[in-house]
């Protein structure tokens, strides 16, 4: 397409003001809880206070007698009404060869609860207060059972059992690689390092809690469900599958603004089904808005993987093999996505950017009396990258060589591209050593000792950590369809199935449309979140730009080609003689022409419409070098981030401002895992101890503010039309190992040596202080 003034100002590659922002800063966003319908009722869940219990009965009578209460639903009520349990296939077989196992997850617990926070009843009332009063009046007769929340305790003989098909609490397991070859490599290795690595459980904690509003339409029999979700189509299909006598054409899912998702708002939740069912049976709009307590206890958690990890190296530091034994705590119900993330997606990047010929990975999904796990920013890749990057530092320490040098010796060379890793994943492009070199320069790697001395002079222990890595993006959902409508009102409207949730995807898509149409950014409108208008996988796995963006380009170009025919008719000229530039068609060599929007007005449908679809050939593989320096106060154990530099190979950049925000904001989430965040359960009672922002420590504004962030755009992705690579999760994945490696380095240099590697996240002040006294929490493998 010809370059235009508008494309030069607002098109791809330009730092523009986001089209999402003006409404959001005025408080005029459309979050689901901002909607209020005539006759709207309110639903409140009663949730289990027990980690594990049999439900002997639910007495609803007192609740139903309260003023304003319209209905009370127990799990048994939903079963009787024909509401189906959550569709859930546990992937991969169990160790005994039988199919993967999980207890059936009902939208409201039916006969047994398996984690604190599982819904046991739902109350609908005229007001939220009345519904809350009603929930308090529901009497549930629980028969308390012994519970287990710890992964390694759950697989011991005699542990409480969550599911009859899994007497050992193992949902499923997976072995990757060649165990015999790995064992042989470890036999002949000159150096072997091994680490116990705990990827602690995290709460995604989007600032907007989940909200669901369901509205039945008696006339059409349709149900409209508005909610905060990254995947409207999956919610539509899931609700239709769960509710009796409802097909998906009868369900319309709408999503307005989403106040953060981070993977937690992917797929269908039990609450979505319950709210939809209540609206259908009551014939009135029903709204449920999660309290933060519910978000912590009943929204998917992330991570929670314990790994024994070993690396075998030859005398020159070349890695011969990676061998791991991992246990993933997938919670009270083994959900498909939670299992796949740990047992397959993480392993895909287990060898990262290193040319490691042999792997042996053995991963077991364990059920415990905790909240089910699902996607959380990075989803499997942070866990795997953390393991390999911790091992790299351990090996460097063992061999007494520089960690950057050891990484360099093992990196896949550009000449090896495309490179198939031992998991069968093919990287199309990547110049990893170039990223390393730029990272070392940006972080002034060579000047570190002087800074360490300066820190020491003020009584601080300085450490330096590096992570060089890549990640898999796209969710293996690589196709997207976009519809373009040119409207006479002067707008080009893009109808998309991708979802904005803070990542500004609508702005990026609009910029790509500006490239093609050459009209101002303000004349591009993006319609999202309506399953009556567009359907697809939704936004997850850093897929939206390289799939949806490519479809925008295809649809936009197709629109112009089609419009050239229409312009030819309007101007009584052959379409091959029609030229388009900046919102206007002209007959080549003349000054006769017609405006794009004027042409739209002339059409019988008063619009020019075209669909465009695009399919990426493969995942994109963004990669980076992140380097962090920390200062530790030896008296308190408090860790401060002293410097953070990153060089990121993300292919072509469409929206530089947004990309920087994704990398740096994402890095702070990774820093959160490294330094402060952890979901904690009481081992004896199974109570969730981190059920509010008082107890679950999110990073605050007084953290760190000195990011040095560089993009390397010189290596475009070759498997999608745009050459872009997914960028939503890169910062989160890199930050955790970079920060922890820095703290371990500080501790090692303070005299702990390799003992420092025993420290486990989160590296809170007490944990680091205890490490300095050689006091560590270790996984109890016995």
């Amino acid at each position, binding site marked *: 397409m010809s370059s235009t003034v508008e494309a030069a100002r607002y098109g791809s590659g330009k730092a523009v003001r986001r089209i999402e922002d003006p409404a959001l800063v005025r408080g005029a966003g459309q979050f689901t809880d901002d909607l209020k319908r005539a006759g709207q009722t309110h639903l409140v869940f009663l949730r289990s206070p027990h980690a594990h219990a049999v439900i002997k009965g639910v007495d609803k009578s007192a609740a139903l007698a309260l003023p304003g209460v319209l209905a009370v639903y127990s799990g048994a009520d939903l079963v009787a009404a024909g509401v189906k349990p959550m569709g859930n296939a546990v992937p991969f077989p169990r160790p005994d060869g039988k199919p993967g196992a999980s207890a059936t997850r009902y939208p409201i617990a039916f006969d047994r609860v398996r984690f604190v926070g599982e819904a046991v009843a739902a109350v609908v009332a005229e007001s939220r207060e009345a519904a809350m009063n009603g929930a308090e009046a529901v009497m549930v007769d629980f028969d308390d059972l012994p519970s287990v929340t710890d992964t390694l305790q759950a697989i011991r003989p005699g542990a409480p059992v969550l599911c009859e098909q899994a007497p050992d609490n193992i949902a499923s397991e997976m072995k990757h690689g060649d165990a015999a070859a790995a064992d042989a490599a470890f036999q002949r290795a000159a150096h072997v390092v091994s680490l116990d690595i705990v990827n602690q459980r995290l709460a995604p904690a989007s600032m*907007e809690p989940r909200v669901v509003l369901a509205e039945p339409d008696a006339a059409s029999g349709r149900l409209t469900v508005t909610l905060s979700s990254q995947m409207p189509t999956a919610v539509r299909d899931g609700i239709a599958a769960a509710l009796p006598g409802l097909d998906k054409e009868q369900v319309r899912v709408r999503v307005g603004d989403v106040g953060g998702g981070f993977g937690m708002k992917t797929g269908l939740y039990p609450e979505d089904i319950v709210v939809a069912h209540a609206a259908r049976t009551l014939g009135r709009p029903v709204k449920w808005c999660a309290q933060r307590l519910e978000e912590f206890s009943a929204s998917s958690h992330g991570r929670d993987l314990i790994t024994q990890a070993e690396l075998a190296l030859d005398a020159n530091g070349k890695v011969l093999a990676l061998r791991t034994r991992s246990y993933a705590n997938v919670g009270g119900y083994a959900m498909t996505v939670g299992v796949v993330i740990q047992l397959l997606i993480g392993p895909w990047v287990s060898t990262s950017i290193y040319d490691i010929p042999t792997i042996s990975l053995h991963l077991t999904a364990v059920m415990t009396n905790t909240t089910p796990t699902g996607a959380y920013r990075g989803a499997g890749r942070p866990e795997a990258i953390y393991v390999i990057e911790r091992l790299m530092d351990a090996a460097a320490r063992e061999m007494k060589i520089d960690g950057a040098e050891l990484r360099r010796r093992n990196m896949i060379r550009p000449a090896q591209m495309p490179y198939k890793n031992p998991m069968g994943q093919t990287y199309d492009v990547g110049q990893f050593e170039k990223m390393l070199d730029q990272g070392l320069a940006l972080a002034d790697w060579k000047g570190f000792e002087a800074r360490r001395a300066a820190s020491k002079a003020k009584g601080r222990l300085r450490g330096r950590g590096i992570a060089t890595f890549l990640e898999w993006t796209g969710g293996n959902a690589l196709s997207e369809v976009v519809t373009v409508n040119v409207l006479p009102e002067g707008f080009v409207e893009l109808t998309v199935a991708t979802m904005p949730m803070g990542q500004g995807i609508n702005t990026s898509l609009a910029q790509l449309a500006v490239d093609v149409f050459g009209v101002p950014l303000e004349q591009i409108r993006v319609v999202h979140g309506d399953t009556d208008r567009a359907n697809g996988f939704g936004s997850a796995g850093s897929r939206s730009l390289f799939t949806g963006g490519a479809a925008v380009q295809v649809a936009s170009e197709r629109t112009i080609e089609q419009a050239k025919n229409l312009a030819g008719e309007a101007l009584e000229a052959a379409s091959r003689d029609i030229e388009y530039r900046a919102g206007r068609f002209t007959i080549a060599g003349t000054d006769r022409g017609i405006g794009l929007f004027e042409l739209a007005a002339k059409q019988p449908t008063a619009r020019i419409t075209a669909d465009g679809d695009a399919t990426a050939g493969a995942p994109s593989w963004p990669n980076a070098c992140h380097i962090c320096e920390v200062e530790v106060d030896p008296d308190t154990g408090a860790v401060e981030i002293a410097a953070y530099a990153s060089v990121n190979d993300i292919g072509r950049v469409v929206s530089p401002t947004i990309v920087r925000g994704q990398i740096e904001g994402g890095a702070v989430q990774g820093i959160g895992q490294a330094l402060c965040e952890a979901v904690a359960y009481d081992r004896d009672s199974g109570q969730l101890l981190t059920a509010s922002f008082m107890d679950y420590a999110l990073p605050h504004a007084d953290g760190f503010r000195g990011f040095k962030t560089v993009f390397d755009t010189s290596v475009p992705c070759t498997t999608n039309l745009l050459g872009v690579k997914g960028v939503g999760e890169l910062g989160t994945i890199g930050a955790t190992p970079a920060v922890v490696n820095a703290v371990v380095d500080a501790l090692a240099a303070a005299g702990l040596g390799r003992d420092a590697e025993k420290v486990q996240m989160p590296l809170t002040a007490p944990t680091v202080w205890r490490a300095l006294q050689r006091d560590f929490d270790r996984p109890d493998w016995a």
Partner: protein
Amino acid sequence: MTSLRIQVNGKSVDTDVAPTTLLVDLLRGPLGLTGTHQGCDTAQCGACTVLIDGQAVKSCSLLALQAQGRSVTTVEGLARGETPHPLQEAFIACHGLQCGFCTPGMLMSACGLLRQVPQPSDTQIADALEGNLCRCTGYVNIVAAVQQAAQTLAATGEKA
């Protein structure tokens, strides 16, 4: 129900509220000012922050009746007519928001700060935002935005 008279965004409001009604619920419910958000149950997230007589207050930890006779400013009252407040302009310019859910609270906390400390240091800004959580931005650009707004206000001689 008790009668309540307050100023909201410069307009006088006369209404009846239950003694148990929180200010945030009055604002979001009967008054329809949904820009003030609620993100937690324990007064930690700060998404509900408003100004009361110029001071930043979490509207979830205040009964509506406690605002009796006072002047409440919500994010909807921050702009000067059609002209965005310098803080709103700076949040956009500095990419100080992503999902935008915490943004109204951030803006109001920052506004409260700038009214008391027109030229804050970055550390003062971060301290003032200690009660506001953001999960998207990492706060870097938020602090930068507040700093930019402070400079804009200083240059024009306006008050926050």
